[in-house]
């Protein structure tokens, strides 16, 4: 346990370092964004004096390092800054879309992860059967499709042609019934999770196949153990480890997917907001959104690392 605790502490420290490095990265990239914030706020007709006053107000006349320090200090106190576009605190604006995106993302994960793991295991155990070939070939298609292509095709089929599902999602605000919102979410969730479903499935299949061929599985069978016990206690824990890191990577992939899917379905989440924010050069809001995404991603990776360590005591001892 002691070594496990040390492992977790080390990874937590690494998480903090990563987030710091990422915040530096985000800050420097957003500083490079073309366009002057003060001009954006006041418009083209603003006098140079007004612009200068506003810049001083916003601290834009300070050196970049000072601005970064202030920004970071603000974040640590829970202050994400003020949106230049909406002239309101970022923290107030970002709540509802963040919640919406989390619903969409969580639904995608809940759909893709269990299904991917189960199908991957199934294919590995029935290696080279017709079912395995069929499923594995489909994953090659699914793994490569951009979300807006799968989503667009689904809209044509299920909304335009069949008329079963609404072509937009989340536009109705709070007036919708549960059934309505559920049917709205089907296509966004499906297009969001198809790629990661394919990857989780393939990874699970590959690592299970590798474990099934290993000497220790042969040894376990030759101890006369039940097939079920061998799969549950000798194959699964080892095969699941590498798949966990693919699941964590999937969450990063989903962040990109959210931007696409939300734009396609008009879903009011942070993905769509991100596009809007970039168009309007709302730097504080942009920084906040990217930092939140990076944090979620980093935490997912941390969770996968710890999960791997719990499954396999060899991890991190090298």
């Amino acid at each position, binding site marked *: 346990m002691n070594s496990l605790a040390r492992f977790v502490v080390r990874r937590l420290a690494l998480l903090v370092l990563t987030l710091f490095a990422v915040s530096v990265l985000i800050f420097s990239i957003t500083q490079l964004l073309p366009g002057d914030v003060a001009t954006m706020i006041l418009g083209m007709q603003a006098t140079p004096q007004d612009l200068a006053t506003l810049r001083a107000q916003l601290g834009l006349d300070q050196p970049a390092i000072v601005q970064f320090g202030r920004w970071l200090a603000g974040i640590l106190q829970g202050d994400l800054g003020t949106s230049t576009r909406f002239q309101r605190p970022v923290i107030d604006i970002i709540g509802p879309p963040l919640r919406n995106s989390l619903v969409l993302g969580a639904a995608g994960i809940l759909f893709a992860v269990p299904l991917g793991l189960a199908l991957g295991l199934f294919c590995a155990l029935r290696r080279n059967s017709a079912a395995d070939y069929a499923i594995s070939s489909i994953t090659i298609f699914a793994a490569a499709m951009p979300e807006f292509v799968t989503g667009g095709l689904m809209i044509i089929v299920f909304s335009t042609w069949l008329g079963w599902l609404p072509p937009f999602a989340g536009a109705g605000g709070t007036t919708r019934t549960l059934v309505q919102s559920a049917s709205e979410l089907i296509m966004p969730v499906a297009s969001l999770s198809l790629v990661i479903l394919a990857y989780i499935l393939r990874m699970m299949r590959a690592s299970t196949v590798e474990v099934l061929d290993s000497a220790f599985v*042969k040894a376990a069978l030759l*101890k006369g153990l039940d097939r079920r*016990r061998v799969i549950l206690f000798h194959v699964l824990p080892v095969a699941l480890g590498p798949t966990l890191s693919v699941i964590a990577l999937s969450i990063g992939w989903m962040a990109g997917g959210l931007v696409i899917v939300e734009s396609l379905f008009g879903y009011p989440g942070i993905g769509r907001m991100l596009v809007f924010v970039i168009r309007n050069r709302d730097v504080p809001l942009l920084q906040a959104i990217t930092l939140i995404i990076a944090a979620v991603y980093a935490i997912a990776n941390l969770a996968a690392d710890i999960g791997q360590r719990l*499954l396999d005591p060899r991890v991190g001892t090298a």
Partner: protein
Amino acid sequence: MALLEVADLAVDYSSARGTVQAVRDVTFELERDEVLGIVGESGSGKSTLAHAILGYRLKGTSRLQGRVTFDGVSLLDCPPAVLRRTWGRRMAIVHQNPLASLTPTMRVGEQIAETLRQHRGATHVDSRSAVAACLRSVGLPEGSDIARRYPHQLSGGQRQRITIAIALSLEPDLMILDEPTTNLDATTEAVILDLLGEIKARTHTAMVYISHNLGVIARVATRVAVMYAGEFVEYGRVDDIFRSPAHPYTRALLACRPRAGQTKRDASLQWIGGEIRVRQERAVECIFRDRCPAKTDPCAVAPGWSDMASGHSVRCWNASVSAQIAPASGPATDLQPTDDIVLDASQIRKTFGRRSNSVRAVNDVSMRVRRGAIVGLVGESGSGKSTLLRCIAGLEVADGGKTAYLGADIPASLAARDREILKTMQMVFQDPESTLNPSLTIGTTLRRHLKSFRPVDSSEADRRIERALEQVRLGPQYQHRLPRELSGGEKQRIAIARAFLSAPELVLCDEPLSSLDVSVQSAICQLLLDLQRDSHASYVFVSHDLSIVRYMADRITVMYLGEVIEEGSAQSFDQPPVHPYTEALFSATQLPDPAAKSQRVRLVGQISEADKYGLGCIFNSRCHRRKGPECADAFPPWQELPERRYRCHWSAPELRGLQEGGIGATPVAPYADR
């Protein structure tokens, strides 16, 4: 009825190039309390046979035919449920690589317990005490937390004890041991073999013991089957096989290894030309015909079994004619080392890693090599022998010490060395599979090497490469081949040809034989000796195989935990006293002679990094001849003998007294693993 009856067993694999017959025509019986040793080189199909006996189809098996009857039950056509009830409970197997055959994510105690629960339905509490009993039965200490550890947290020896404990846990009637000690150090191997001997005496379990090592087979087996290319070629009691081997293959195998005390000045070793060929269809001729030194006309037809004596049969037309072991030929070399010193390395030191977790791999080691001499460097894994060699070569930059080469000091770093030094100091690596660039033809590899030392025009390069190939007994057509088309022995020959292209003064050989089959090893030994006779080069020859080093070397240096604990002329090692560690190493050598079962010295515990940082002798925690508190408190001095010196608190007369009656002939030290 015998416990195990195997009749006409045949196993085929399907491969890209068609069917491969891995095992054919295997027939034998095994009674309780017997140990059948199956000996064969790589590719002989012995591991396939081990699994076929269990009724287990290895991956790719396309045919498993014949009869395997275990205690009246036919295993090849019984339902899987019957096999599952038999495996683990009545027949158990111990695999070669314990780290790979233990599940990495499960505590080892649980891996024993689940077997018990499966077959006996033992409850959790029952199985806990049963696990403790199992651990005790393989000599793992009680009260330790070993059962709660994971496989990677154990040493190699402990892991193999665990797999043996699993196999033993339900007191099976038959144990199959598939090279169980091959990946272990010699001293650990000796201890495991002792353990198997004890188990057999206690439980009367029948065993099938599979090994490539004739010495190990001679030690453990009551009956021996010699396997070649998937078939048994000779079968008999252990004494028959080792005293009056009848098949030319068996005789050649025995003659490939130096006999006790034999050196290069006494006799050259035999080797078997060619290599085992994969059989695609039933051969009409004798399977050994293409490599047989004693082939005659009748060999064009496969021979049947003929009895040499009761229970000793052989599959050879000429068996009765040539039952004698081939007479020893003349000395393998007549080259004598001169007084000229080629290499004088002193106080070499190398530490890996950073402060907190640094490993001191080589500590103040000095070594001298005379022209035309072979210095053998022995020690077990972790002794630093390879690191020392790499420091001399410049592949690792030594942290301290001085290296004089051909009379001048040379820099420790490779980058700072002159081209002339690089040219004349060459190296031969351990693994033939990676010693040649897989994407380059042999010709390109050799040409690159040649051109890096001086510009040569292409016709001269061709000439020199052809000559180099000829020197290592390979034809010029090898130039155009890729490494994957070559056997392990051929690759190692190319590596040697590469080393000799630039007229070397010093060749550093890093375990050049350890990945090769016995019959190929001896050929490479002779090749190295021949090349040395022609070139007067000097060798540093690293090996963990004491018999080979004793045969090849003029001087021997013994390393333990990064330090030299003994060094001297090779022949002086025959006479006591020797350092207690050297004594244990010699005693752990398995000689291919069933009568050599003398009492042996066994090492306690295992190599531990912590021992390097104590005040006393680095060997004191495992030493069976501890003198007293000074061993732990004071660094031992060199004890000088006429031709040798060793580092120990025992003076030469004292130690000689302890070791009287021959090295290693002392009671076995009580075993306790830490």
